[in-house]
């Protein structure tokens, strides 16, 4: 059985007021600013093709754009790195307990070695 999502109100929403405040400030700033008319794109311009050309540093597009070849290659590397990193992080180690000790700031180790219950204070 599914339940209807319910809005849970309470004091945990108080920090959200900061986000609301930020929005208020930003909105006030943006609405107070004035912009000249946008240049826009010419009628019939093929935006998708232009994006493709600009991404590979080819000058065939009807809309101009900066060369993005280097950025493209860097993104390639970043994606590969992220993939490898994600796999590394997600892999379950054989000696899992050791990792636990290392990522808790040494508290587990201290507790075992010195039998010190005050360890994480």
């Amino acid at each position: 059985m599914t339940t209807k999502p319910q809005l849970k109100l309470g004091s945990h929403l108080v920090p959200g007021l900061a986000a609301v405040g930020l929005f208020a400030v930003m909105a006030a700033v943006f609405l107070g600013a004035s912009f000249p008319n946008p240049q826009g794109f010419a009628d019939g311009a093929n935006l998708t093709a232009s994006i493709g050309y600009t991404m590979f540093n080819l000058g065939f597009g009807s809309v101009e754009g900066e060369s993005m070849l280097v950025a493209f290659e860097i993104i390639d590397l970043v994606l590969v790195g992220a993939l490898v990193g994600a796999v590394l992080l997600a892999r379950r180690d054989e000696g899992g307990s050791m990792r636990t000790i290392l990522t808790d700031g040494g508290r587990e180790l201290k507790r075992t070695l010195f039998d010190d219950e005050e360890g994480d204070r």
Partner: protein
Amino acid sequence: MVPGQYYLVLSAAVFCIGIFGLLTRKNALLFLMSVELMLNAANINLVAFSYYWGNVTGQTFGLFTMALAAAEVAVGIGIILVLYRNFDGVDVTKATTMRW
């Protein structure tokens, strides 16, 4: 013709919703979603200004941002997995071992 400010206000709204999520939620997965919202708020700006200047650079950047978001999510999910393993759950407020 939509005035330029409206795009910005929209972007700000999406960004602040993301921040709201960050501030009020404890679940790491929801954190990740909120961060996605914030990234896409930036994308809205990029596309809006691309139109504004009549130049496709901004839109191309938007594409790159999405690719980066994918990378970020991959790493983020990995971190959440480690978090789950070490702190028995995905509650970010429990992982406080790096405080003073």
